[in-house]
């Protein structure tokens, strides 16, 4: 039982009315519930963003298709990108961080529970605001318009002159609002990790998930804020007659690009670092060995955080920077591949000599390793700026970043779902459905995103609502669309698994995976107060020490 209720004989405890239950959820400040709210809202936006992707893929299935008009298509890719980055990836990762960080450090809750709730609702409101644009963004084209400026809203396309009406303002405002929510969560995570660790948990003894979320939160503080600043400037341009990006008044369109990508590049590391965190928890447990090279994993992540702040203009290789600037950003971009690549070796080193168990979380982790390797290598290709003068703005780069986000981030997330769902709900997810999910998604993913590199090499630019026949792109696009539908099917299997297992899944005990961090020492789901007594730890794997008192980690650290 999750509460210490005392039953008074002779009385009947009534089931709580659903309104009450709903009220509890809406007003909660408990990090576990807020974590689940983040995850559920991310799943909702994942479904919506996925439908937008399918619309894009149907339109591009063959040349000169007429499934949607160019205006609708342009809104689809804008909304798909914006939704997936800001209302799926960020929230789901904040959700897992919220849920797991206090548990892993032996704390009662996050440092600021009310700020936590406020940040979640800001984030969710941002998502609703973005989608309200379909109803409220009236422009010259008629009633109701979502933004259609691309998820970067490059200047001067985002200016009043080229985006009349309010559609792009919904883009700006929804991201500003949810951006402030992200900053609140990041501050909360940092304060929690630095101030609420249980006795004995020195900084060098924190689980890697905690370390990596600390680094991620620090990056959020300095990476999200440039975007907020740029968006405030855009609003000043659009509403107060400012000239920040007004090229007619001597303003610079390139300045917007710099500001956007100073946010945009660290942002993708903000998204991937928590996924590294998941891998660093899951792979050791299913290889039955500790992570190989904990100090270097920490050091490499901190290194990535710093170096990633210096690579942003590799998104701007085609805008006409001089050869010295292009060379500099080539160098830094290739350099950031070193600490990133090292991590792959460390994970393989963890598996090496272990006894690997191929449960669903591990299947997704191995998929992650394979795909992240490829994604990193196509990244190195584009780091070479002359090569990028061909590859940039084409379907090659679309394939690359989906390889990272779907093949890397989403695979790691699926692993995290299968691994921690038992802790959150007290039930195991079905292994059978999990394997169906994995194989279907793997096939669909590779069918789509392996093939997608090729139209890029054959000259197909991105963000086009249709294309000419005879360029050799038709068949490839058709195959890509098929793969998209297979992935959609796999997602349905996953959502079904989540729902069915909630009611019918096998009961998980405290520790179904025989793991080693503090969250597995309490019940599944945990009591609202997390720990009955404040734990104290003496090593990086406190439960290993308890299970193996003859060979504790504390002897080797």
């Amino acid at each position, binding site marked *: 039982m999750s509460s210490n209720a005392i039953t008074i004989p002779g009385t009947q405890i009534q089931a709580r009315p659903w309104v009450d239950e709903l009220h509890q959820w809406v007003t909660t400040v408990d990090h576990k519930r807020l974590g689940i709210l983040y995850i559920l809202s991310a799943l909702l936006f994942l479904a919506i963003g996925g439908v937008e992707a399918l619309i894009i893929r149907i339109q591009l299935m063959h040349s000169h298709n007429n499934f949607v008009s*160019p205006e609708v298509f*342009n809104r689809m890719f804008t909304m798909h990108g914006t939704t997936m980055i800001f209302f799926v990836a960020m929230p789901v990762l904040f959700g897992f961080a919220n849920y797991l960080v206090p548990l892993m450090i032996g704390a009662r809750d996050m440092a600021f529970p009310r700020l936590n709730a406020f940040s979640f609702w800001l984030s969710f409101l941002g998502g609703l605001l973005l989608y309200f644009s379909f109803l409220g963004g009236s422009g010259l084209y008629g009633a109701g318009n979502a933004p259609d400026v691309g998820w970067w809203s*490059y*200047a*001067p*396309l985002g200016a009043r002159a*080229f985006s009349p009406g309010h559609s792009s303002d919904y883009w700006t405002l929804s991201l500003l609002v949810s951006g402030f929510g992200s900053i609140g969560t990041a501050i909360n995570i940092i304060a929690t990790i630095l101030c609420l660790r249980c006795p004995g948990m020195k900084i060098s003894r924190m689980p890697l998930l905690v370390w990596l979320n600390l680094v991620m939160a620090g990056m959020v503080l300095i990476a999200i804020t440039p975007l907020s600043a740029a968006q405030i400037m855009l609003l000043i341009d659009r509403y107060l007659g400012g000239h920040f990006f007004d*090229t007619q008044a*001597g303003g*610079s*369109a*390139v300045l917007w690009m710099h500001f956007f990508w100073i946010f945009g590049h660290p942002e993708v590391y903000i998204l991937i670092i928590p996924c590294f965190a998941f891998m660093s928890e899951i792979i050791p447990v299913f*290889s*039955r*060995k*500790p992570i*190989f*090279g*904990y100090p270097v994993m920490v050091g490499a992540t901190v290194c990535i955080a710093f170096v990633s702040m210096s690579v942003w203009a590799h998104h701007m290789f085609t*805008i*006409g920077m*001089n*050869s010295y600037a292009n*060379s500099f950003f*080539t160098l830094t971009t*290739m*350099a950031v*591949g*070193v600490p990133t*690549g*090292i991590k792959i*070796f460390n994970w393989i*080193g963890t*598996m090496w*000599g272990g*006894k690997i168990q191929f449960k669903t979380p591990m*299947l997704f982790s191995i998929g992650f*390793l*394979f795909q992240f*390797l490829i994604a990193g290598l196509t990244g*190195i290709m584009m780091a*070479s700026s*002359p*090569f*990028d*003068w*061909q590859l940039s*703005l084409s379907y090659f780069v679309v394939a690359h970043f989906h390889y990272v986000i779907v093949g890397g981030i989403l695979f790691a997330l699926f692993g995290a779902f299968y691994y921690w769902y038992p802790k959150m709900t007290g039930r195991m997810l079905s292994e059978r459905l999990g394997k169906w999910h994995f194989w279907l998604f793997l096939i669909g993913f590779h069918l789509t995103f*392996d*093939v997608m590199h*090729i139209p890029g*090499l*054959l*000259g197909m630019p991105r*963000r*086009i609502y*249709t294309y000419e026949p*005879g360029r*050799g792109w038709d068949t490839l696009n058709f195959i890509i669309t098929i793969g998209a539908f297979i992935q959609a099917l796999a997602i349905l299997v996953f959502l079904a698994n989540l729902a069915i297992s909630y009611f019918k899944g096998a009961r998980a005990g405290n520790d179904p995976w025989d793991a080693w961090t503090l969250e597995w020492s309490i019940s599944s789901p945990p009591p609202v107060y997390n720990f009955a007594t404040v734990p104290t730890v003496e090593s990086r794997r406190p439960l290993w020490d308890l299970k*193996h008192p003859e060979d504790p980690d504390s002897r080797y650290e």
Partner: protein
Amino acid sequence: MLRMKSSTVRFLAQMTLLLFWSAITVWASEPKGSPSHGTNIFAPASTPAKSIADLSVFVLVITGIIFVVVFALLAYSVVRFRGRAMDAGREPAQVYGSTQIELAWTIIPILIVVVLFLATARVIHAIQDAPEPAGAVQVTAIGHQYWWEFRYPRLGIVTANELHIPVSDPSHPTPTFLQLLSADTDHSFWVPELAGKTDLIPNHPNRIWMDPQRTGVFLGQCAQYCGTQHAKMLLRVSVDGPEDFAAWVRGQKRLAVEDAGAIAGRRVFESNACMNCHAVTGTAADGRFGPDLTHLMSRATIAAGAAQNTHDNLRLWIQDPSAIKPGSLMPAMKLSDADLDAVVNYMETLR
């Protein structure tokens, strides 16, 4: 039924994917049958495109080797270190790390980065800092929503959407240098077989050059999302032999043909708002918002490649541009059928 371990199935699946991927790459990289050249970045016809293609192959080889090595390690560990049922209850040796190994796999990638960077920097400078020789053809390309304006300042020519440049003999190069400007939003000039892409950004002039060594028509299109009809801002670059190029220049320099049979159409053109946007040299029409129409009939396509330059397409385009390119900034002038036919007739005299 053949029962295999999950891990082996995985491994086979990955191998199959690899083979499938390679096959598709080989198949797709063969040029498709079409009269003009394709848009394959590995079929370069000009020095910058060739330097890029050569560098790209070098990068691909190196990343390919890295992939093979790391994948082999991953596959081996997945197969070799599978947990077996008999192992239940016993944990493997708990290894925390190894300084030598970690040092090795840090230093080797750093060396690879140094090599790749040096190879890249050379090509960056060779392409971007190439000096412009005296005999180069100069073109000013101005990006518009959703068409290309081409001006040849030294030759006194203005045209739109279809670029003609001379073929360049490697022993006596006659490259073309383009200055890239924009009249509105950001665009990008991308003709893959001639050069890497460079953006056209307002208030930020850029420069690109190419020296095509084969004649023919090279295709491309705008690569930076510029608005609704970004997809139909196509490029057609005709690389001409020296005589053909000279003939083309002469033709473009002439004033507009004055055909007596087209006076009615010309009157419609000049009394409706057409001349506010379009220019026809030698007449009163000198608008700059739309393409120069002086030699419209010398172009194979209209609406920046959105349609072939035929009588029917031209008529449809003038009658209602959104039938061909919805979102185009050219308004439908709501001409009567008689006026429409007259204007089309006039357009067809502008050779």
